[in-house]
């Protein structure tokens, strides 16, 4: 057991894998070639169409211990992963890994198959019940949490081999050309699935909307697809994307947003060519709303908006605030509609979006990103993976990728959430290293990383409530009382991989 540079205890090995402890955000370099797969030849008249998922699984020659993947653009409306796991069980396969781009609450249906030993690994982190049960020791399943960029990296380097990728295709033809913008299960961008289409040993397009050749536009093309399967439904459209994402009405959230926008303005980044990313949370959208007003007042024309895209960013594109939206995932129906018809709304792969190991990803061009947090600590490390209860409940998403890429990474959060102070001596789990986090904005105060002395002076000049993070920690802990630390057992249930593949933290079983 050695400590990484953040003082987290990392074992030398876990489940047979030698672990590389995290050192810093920048210096780990790729030392491998791109992963590869056999070429195949398809002749005119060869059919890719198979009658069922089972028929496709049979063609993949899966054996015990292999990995399958899906993408998570259908989010909590996804039916495909559950169907696949049931088939794996029916085929008698065991010790299989799920290397999907994310796992959601809807996939709690696979819990019986984890108990049965059909699934023993999840290579991408989890949202919801599976993580909680694993944290409590009620379920045995090895979990590796990867960011969006980190997952793309792990496929491109071959660290994670996907033996069969099943790509839910809302619009698809018989050769496998597909897009996400048409059909009853339209989800917009297919950004996360691009990497699977390129690197999986076998690629199966699964559609509930088989159209006459050629499907257009083409997001993922026939040259990467082995088989096509038509099924009745890919998912529940009402849950695929939430219908609307809304600006918060909570006064504390609005105050946080106002402060965050002032920080961005004071930083000097808010000028022509400004690039920006926020999540879909109500406070994040309120920051965007404040930024829009400042852009109007200053006649500022931005360059691009990025990330999971919401209707709010669509409005900013259509009203000329940004020239381009880079979209790896649509968060609402307005974004789905926009990517279908706006030329400036571009679908991008997770690799292009956020991978640390390519010739430059979009996050490197971001001026500012607005991020959330479950906890932060006095060293600016951020936790979004575990709750303060110690349970692994959330995936990383693009958190650590955008924090590393953006010039200004701002965490917005209420100072107290259900009695828990936002600032801790040490976070329960490190998702994103403090070296890549610049500002923490709460309704009671703004804390800046030491390197931002100029920005600190400018904020003070503007009469904003700048506070030293140690003093701020004391201030809010006096209100909440000091929380008793959660106790953990020694056994490790999950790894938190940093985007470059080093281990930034581990999740241990909670002592109940």
């Amino acid at each position, binding site marked *: 057991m050695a400590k990484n540079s953040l003082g987290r205890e990392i074992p030398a090995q876990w489940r047979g894998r030698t672990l590389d402890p995290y050192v810093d955000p920048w210096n780990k370099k790729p030392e491998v070639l791109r992963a590869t797969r056999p070429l195949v030849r398809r002749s005119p008249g060869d059919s890719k169409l198979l009658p069922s998922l089972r028929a496709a699984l049979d063609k993949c020659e899966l054996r015990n211990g292999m990995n399958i993947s899906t993408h998570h653009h259908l989010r909590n409306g996804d039916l495909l992963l559950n169907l696949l796991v049931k088939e794996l069980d029916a085929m008698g396969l065991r010790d299989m890994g799920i290397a999907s781009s994310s796992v959601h609450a809807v996939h709690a249906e696979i819990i019986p198959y984890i108990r049965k030993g059909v699934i023993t690994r999840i290579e991408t982190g989890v949202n919801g019940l599976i993580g909680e049960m694993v944290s409590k020791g009620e379920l045995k399943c090895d979990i590796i949490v990867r960011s969006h960029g980190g997952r793309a990296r792990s496929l491109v380097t071959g660290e994670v081999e996907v033996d069969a990728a099943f790509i839910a295709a809302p619009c698809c033809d018989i050769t496998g050309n597909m897009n996400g913008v048409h059909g009853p299960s339209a989800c917009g961008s297919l950004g996360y699935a691009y990497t699977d289409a390129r690197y999986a040993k076998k690629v199966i397009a699964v559609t509930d909307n088989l159209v006459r050749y050629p499907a257009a536009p083409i997001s993922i093309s026939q040259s990467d697809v082995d088989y096509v399967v038509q099924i009745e439904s890919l998912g529940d459209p009402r849950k695929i994307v939430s219908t609307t994402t809304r600006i918060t009405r909570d006064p504390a959230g609005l105050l946080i947003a106002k402060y965050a926008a002032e920080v961005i303005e004071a930083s000097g980044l808010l000028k022509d060519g400004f690039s920006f990313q926020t999540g879909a949370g109500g406070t994040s959208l309120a920051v965007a709303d404040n930024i829009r007003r400042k852009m109007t007042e200053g006649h500022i024309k931005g360059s691009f908006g990025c990330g999971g895209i919401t209707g709010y960013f669509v409005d900013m594109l259509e009203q000329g605030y940004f020239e381009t939206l880079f979209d790896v995932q649509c968060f609402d129906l307005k974004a789905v509609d926009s990517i279908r018809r706006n030329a400036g709304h571009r679908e991008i792969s997770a690799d292009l979006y956020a991978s640390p190991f390519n010739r430059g990803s979009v996050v490197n061009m971001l001026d500012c990103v607005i991020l959330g947090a479950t906890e932060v600590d006095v060293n600016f490390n951020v936790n979004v993976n575990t709750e*303060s*209860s110690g349970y692994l409940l959330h995936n990383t998403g693009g958190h650590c990728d955008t924090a590393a890429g953006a010039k200004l990474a701002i965490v917005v959060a209420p100072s107290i959430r*259900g*009695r828990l102070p936002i600032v801790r001596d040490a976070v329960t789990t490190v998702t994103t290293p403090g070296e890549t986090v610049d500002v923490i904005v709460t309704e009671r105060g703004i804390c800046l990383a030491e390197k931002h002395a100029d920005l600190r002076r400018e904020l003070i000049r503007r009469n904003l409530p700048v506070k030293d993070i140690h003093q701020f920690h004391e201030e809010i802990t006096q*209100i909440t*009382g000091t929380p008793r630390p959660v106790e953990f057992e020694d056994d490790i249930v999950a790894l938190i991989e940093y985007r470059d593949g080093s281990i930034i933290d581990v999740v241990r079983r909670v002592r109940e």
Partner: protein
Amino acid sequence: MHIRRKASSGTMQSSDLMVTVEPSDLLQIEIESTVKKQFEHLIRAQITATLEHLGVTTGRIQISDRGALDYAIAARIETAIRRASEE
């Protein structure tokens, strides 16, 4: 004050709590909380202090807490007990 009948106060919203009190020969305090692991000791201390302040020595006090701060705990308990002790 003396708890004469069952009464309650509060809500189940985040950062609030629901307090139910009823007569009992003993003093019984039951705590359920979203942050029980981290804060049970402080919640119990605040309840005990508030009961002492109000001179309550017997009764069954049930707390369903959603992460309320100490002042909210004190106020909700006092309200529930005033309601329970009305003639």
